[in-house]
């Protein structure tokens, strides 16, 4: 358990760091996919099988692929960036991120929530489905609308103008 967590955590952090630090954008996205898979593995470790599989399906199967497509469409895939990698105020950004991590870490360690896990709950797909259809039916509907709207919006934004003939 501990060993599995350590391995997965290292994988996630390595993947995430590489995803934001590498020069080649395709490598970035592939490392991001590694991080996603790691997070999904953590979900499985936490006993949330359905969420873990959904994470793989959505993040690896959809988000990473979308990013790959965006890379190809914006010609970032075959033209490795030659200019400076980071923006002008990169030092500020990294400092802020480090600061945030420091604050969070202090907060977490000070809060004393580090209790051990209770026995693992039995989480079946049927339970999730029933919960979705009972207590969360309104959010589900709203989410459906949101997804539809965002899909239409994405299509409209990315659509090219009809070619002038």
């Amino acid at each position, binding site marked *: 358990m501990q060993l599995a967590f350590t391995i997965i955590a290292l994988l996630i952090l390595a993947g995430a760091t590489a995803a934001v630090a590498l020069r080649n954008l395709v490598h970035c996205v592939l490392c991001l*996919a590694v991080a996603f898979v790691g997070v999904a593995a953590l979900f*499985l470790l936490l006993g949330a099988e359905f969420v873990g599989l959904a994470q793989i*399906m959505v993040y690896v199967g959809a988000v990473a*692929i979308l990013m790959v*497509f965006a890379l190809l469409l914006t010609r970032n895939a075959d033209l490795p960036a030659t200019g400076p990698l980071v923006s002008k105020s990169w030092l500020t950004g990294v400092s802020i991120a480090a600061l945030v991590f420091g604050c969070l870490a202090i907060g977490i360690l000070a809060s004393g929530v580090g209790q051990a896990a209770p026995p693992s709950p039995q989480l079946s797909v049927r339970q999730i489905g029933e919960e979705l259809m009972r207590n969360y039916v309104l959010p589900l509907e709203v989410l459906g609308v949101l997804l539809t709207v965002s899909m239409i919006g994405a299509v409209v934004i990315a659509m090219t103008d009809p070619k002038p003939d």
Partner: protein
Amino acid sequence: MTPWSTLLALAGDATGSWLAQLKNLATHPWVVNLVAMAVILGANAAFFAVITLLERKGLGRIQNRPGPNRAGPFGILQPAADGIKMITKEDIVPERADQLVHFLAPLVMLAPITLALAVLPYGPQLVAVNLDAGVLFFFAIGTAGELAAFMAGWSSRNKYSLLGAMRAIAQMISFELPLVLSTLVVIMMTGSMSLVEIVAGQGSAAWGLPGWNIFTPWGLAGFLIFLTAAAAESNRSPFDLPEGESEIIGGFMTEYSGFKYAVFFMAEYFGMFAVSGLGITLFLGGWHAPFPFLEWVPGIFWYVAKLVALVFGFIWIRGTLPRLRADQLMNFSWKFLMPLALLNFATAILWHATAGWQFPGAWLCRWLVCFGIVAGAFTGLGRAMLRRRQVGPRIYRYAS
């Protein structure tokens, strides 16, 4: 602590009793896991060898040729010859290729598909991992293929590879929707995402017909949609555009040779086995025998028989049909299969709602009504699609 940490539980039935004994001997779960992995991998690899030979023989016969018949009697050693050839061939990596990604792509393609093979129930109790969300696992794993196709196509630094990868990704994404929608009908009617329970739900025979889902109108339509989408998902003809050799040479596999190519090839066939296995599980009653009096034959036999039949269907189609064009493929998926799959949902609901009909001939009546809806939609959508593109038979005139 969860079903996940104890990955596999292979209990033996009539065919696998030695596995059960082994489990008693080796109490450590890792040993059992390793054995299960080895059995699944080995059996599928052997099946892969047999199927490649069968495919070449079948295609040959369709084309009035004998097929491979030089290596061994009737050419049965041909897969071995192919394997030796593949392994001993030079492994060529393009000079400007992204070496690491180029190396990883075949593995990323193959590994998830072998995982997907682990959740299929091959017989009563003969399932490596009985997942509560087995179907979801199947589709989640399948997404890795898209990434692998991209990795292969992009890292080769070849324009044909890139075109092939773009085609492969677009095709896999588009056909995942009808594939998932057609399986959702089964999940809805069975009330479970567990593949074992779905098979168990198809055991009871009625009216002399087995209780397989394919014998219901929604099951029949779902099966056909599933089969079409599955052919596209596993890049089989007539949807083999990603590697359409007459257009883009080899697609994302253009720059692969030797063993890496063999791994891609193997992944493609494993994908076909996996998706056919899913189809068998969902629609064709899994390992169930067609008739109750044949139940004494081990389930694995029926499973393999159905798998061979499905694969042979794929080969038959491959020997007959030319391939579609990329935009036609998209149209076919989004404008034909998707609406049809959605309508199939409605049909399933109607089937469910009319389950209470009691008058004589009610079953037949339900069947015909539901089938009529699906068939009508099929005809209408197909006609509309062909007519919009002004595609149809033509009559020719002669000069006077």
